[in-house]
């Protein structure tokens, strides 16, 4: 079995003493362009990934990151320009040592973990008894990368949580006889903080052994802490390449061309003063159930309530309870709309246009006597497309849009309906900063109109946009923060505070 490119013992960095510039490039892109129809995804990319370094790649959604990754991984040919692997013009076979872990994973949900390993790493598995070999290899690799992962090779992928699926996907990408370049696409979006730390420790070992790693992430702070160099992709071209040392988050954002305004502490939360006086629209009184242990919370009219804490501590169960208040411990007095986080699986209707996707929830409210009114629908759709600057317009097919724009449509769908309570299930995972600030503004505007919003987010910084934040741990609320108390540092402190959860 030769799937273990990384021996268990210590690995000495082979290029000790040589500067980063002297390391040989693994994959080089020169003047690469790529167009889909009239959309020019890449307008001329020059990029070099060198052995033994982590190159961070940042850029907005739609900047061309996904296309560039597919070209570098040899999945798509470029229109003009060249891609060199080890300095030679690459043919299909040369890309075998370039592996990519996809954000949305490229696993077959109905197959077991071991069978998925066969699909992607069959070249390195024996023809007979491959199942045993694949199981051993994936178990060993997962143990190395994510200690305490809790995945068995016999589990079917569809039964695993999102975080575990991501672990399997990354392990799958690393399971090859020779790994020259590992491309990680938003690897930590669904991983918890512990798993993310383990992953980056493993990445360090990989580059110590001379592998190159290309890291794509929206979490700029994370990129800066892991990467040796950072490349900024903007409008289909690399506009800047800097050493990560000495670079700060604001610098990178500036290079990306973002103008992210910090939420003004007075403007965003003017309403937080009168929380107690608000009319209650939804309430949980000591709710218990799978994943919930005596949760008591209330949501006032026009309030933005955040559910924070580490991933999987009961926040999604609260949303589920508010969406379907089947038990008597839950009261919801208004109609609800739900924005799912997993837009690929439960968000978009892929065959429909943007307009149809957007209007589907509001349809009933607009229709009269069971008949649709197309003119009014078009007006509403047009309004939202303009308001959120959805690229492509109402007639475009939803799957032609970039991820960020799809997410705008999903959020607009909820807000276009007349619902009084909007439930957000971590909807901004993997969305670029521009889109995020648009959507944050939208949430505040809609709250000001008297709508209530319950918002679960795995990104604690987002909670600063809430009036009130409940912090969860192990199915309980361990803290309620209001107004000025809400800060990333405070939320993290509370969610990790061991005493808080056991009282």
């Amino acid at each position: 079995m030769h799937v273990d490119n990384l021996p268990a013992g210590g690995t000495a960095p082979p290029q000790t003493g040589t500067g980063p510039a002297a390391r040989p490039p693994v994959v080089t892109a020169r003047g690469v362009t790529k167009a889909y129809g009239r959309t020019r995804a890449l307008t001329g990319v020059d990029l070099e990934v060198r052995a033994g370094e982590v190159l961070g790649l940042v850029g907005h959604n739609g900047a061309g990151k996904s296309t560039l990754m597919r070209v570098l991984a040899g999945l798509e040919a470029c229109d003009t320009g060249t891609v060199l692997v080890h300095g030679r013009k690459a043919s299909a076979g040369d890309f075998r040592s370039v592996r990519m872990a996809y954000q949305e994973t490229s696993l077959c949900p109905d197959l077991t973990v071991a069978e998925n390993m066969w699909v992607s790493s069959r070249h390195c598995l024996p023809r007979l008894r491959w199942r045993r070999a694949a199981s051993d290899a994936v178990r060993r690799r997962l143990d190395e990368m994510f200690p305490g992962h809790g995945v068995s090779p016999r589990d079917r992928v569809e039964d695993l949580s999102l975080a575990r699926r991501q672990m399997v996907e990354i392990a799958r990408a690393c399971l090859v006889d020779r790994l020259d370049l590992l491309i990680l696409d938003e690897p930590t979006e669904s991983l918890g903080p512990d798993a993310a730390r383990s992953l980056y420790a493993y990445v360090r070992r990989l580059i110590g052994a001379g592998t190159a790693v290309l890291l794509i992430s929206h979490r700029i702070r994370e990129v800066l802490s892991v990467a040796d160099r950072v490349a900024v992709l903007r409008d289909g071209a690399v506009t800047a390449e800097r050493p990560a040392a000495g670079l700060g988050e604001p610098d990178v954002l500036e290079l990306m061309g973002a103008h992210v305004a910090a939420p003004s502490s007075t403007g965003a939360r003017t309403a937080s003063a009168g929380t107690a006086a608000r009319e209650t629209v939804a309430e949980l009184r000591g709710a218990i159930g799978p994943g919930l242990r005596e949760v008591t919370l209330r949501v006032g009219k026009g309030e933005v309530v955040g559910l924070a804490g580490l991933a999987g501590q009961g926040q999604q169960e609260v949303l589920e309870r508010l969406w379907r208040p089947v038990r008597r411990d839950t009261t919801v007095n208004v109609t609800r709309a739900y924005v799912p986080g997993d837009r690929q699986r439960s968000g978009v209707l892929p065959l429909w246009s943007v307009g149809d996707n957007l209007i589907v929830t509001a349809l009933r409210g607009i229709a009269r006597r069971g008949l649709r009114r197309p003119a009014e629908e078009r007006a509403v759709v047009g309004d939202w497309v303009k308001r959120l600057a959805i690229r492509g317009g109402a007639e475009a097919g939803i799957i032609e849009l970039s991820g960020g724009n799809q997410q705008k449509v999903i959020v607009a769908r909820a807000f276009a309906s007349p619902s009084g309570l909007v439930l957000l299930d971590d909807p901004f995972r993997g969305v670029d900063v521009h889109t995020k600030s648009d959507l944050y503004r939208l949430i505040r505007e809609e709250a000001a109109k008297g709508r209530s919003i319950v918002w679960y987010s795995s990104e604690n910084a987002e909670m600063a946009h809430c009036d009130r934040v409940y912090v969860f741990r192990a199915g309980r609320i361990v803290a309620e923060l209001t107004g000025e108390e809400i800060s990333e540092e405070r939320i993290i402190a509370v969610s990790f505070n061991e005493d808080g959860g056991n009282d």
Partner: protein
Amino acid sequence: MAHLLAPALPDRARMRRSAPAAVSAVALVAMLCVCSSLQPGVLTVEGLTLVLSATVPLVIAAQAQMTLMAVGDIDLGIGNFVGLVTVVSATLLVSSPLLGVLVLIGLVAAYAVLGLLIHLREVPALIATLGASFLWLGLGLFLLPTPGGTTPGWLASFGAWQPAGFPAPLLPILVVALVVYLLTARSAAGVRMRGLGSNAVALRRAGLRPLTSRVFAYATAGALGVLSGLVLASQTGGGDVSSASGYTLTTVAAVILGGGSFSGGTAVPWGAAIGGVTLGLVSVVLSLLDVRSDMQSAVQGVIVLAVLAGRVVVGKVLR
């Protein structure tokens, strides 16, 4: 905290997946009990042989359907295809055995070509197999306009084979299920087929050709269809192109009863066998219960719906 986060999923998930087949098995046992209370002779070797023999071709056809449903397709031509095979075995296989064998091999190849066309032209399998079903029907009517003919001696003696000690029909049912299980659930080719039904994009990214998987699945289904037709001909002793037209939808029901899904990705050979036997037994029970023949179809439908409802309920409980 880890023990709180670790959901007890896998075992429960495995239970949930085998639940449909378990519900069908319960229905199967219940029907056998009803039969034996009405006719005590049913539980003897001869009785079981009699009761089960009618289900054998259906179960083999259900395995063919299951193979195609594993890649996410559905076969609306299997009934007429099985009928055509009975016609070929009652005519050509008797008059010129070599030509007959070649024609049967050609039919398997035709299935592979059908899969190839479905994949390359991106036609829905539903439409293409429905179209093919008329082709099979037409060919069958051309070869043998009215039911009749005789099957070759070796086939007839297989149909009449009565070993002592165990019911003969169990053997083909179990052997075919085992072969299909090894092929679809244990082998690398099976992983490719199920992978195609599960996530074709992932398959392509890994450098595997979905075309190969689909053609292989269709060829397998064709071979199983031929086998089903031969067994049916051995039992009826003649050829009739419309003798198995009911199989088309019954096999789909058998796969669903056994835990398969329309969306593809899963292979349930044992489940399909149980579902097929269950459906085959329903008509036996109904005739033993003296249900009027004009009501039998309706009652059969109600029983199928009841078993499906049981599957849904069990699935809900195990969630």
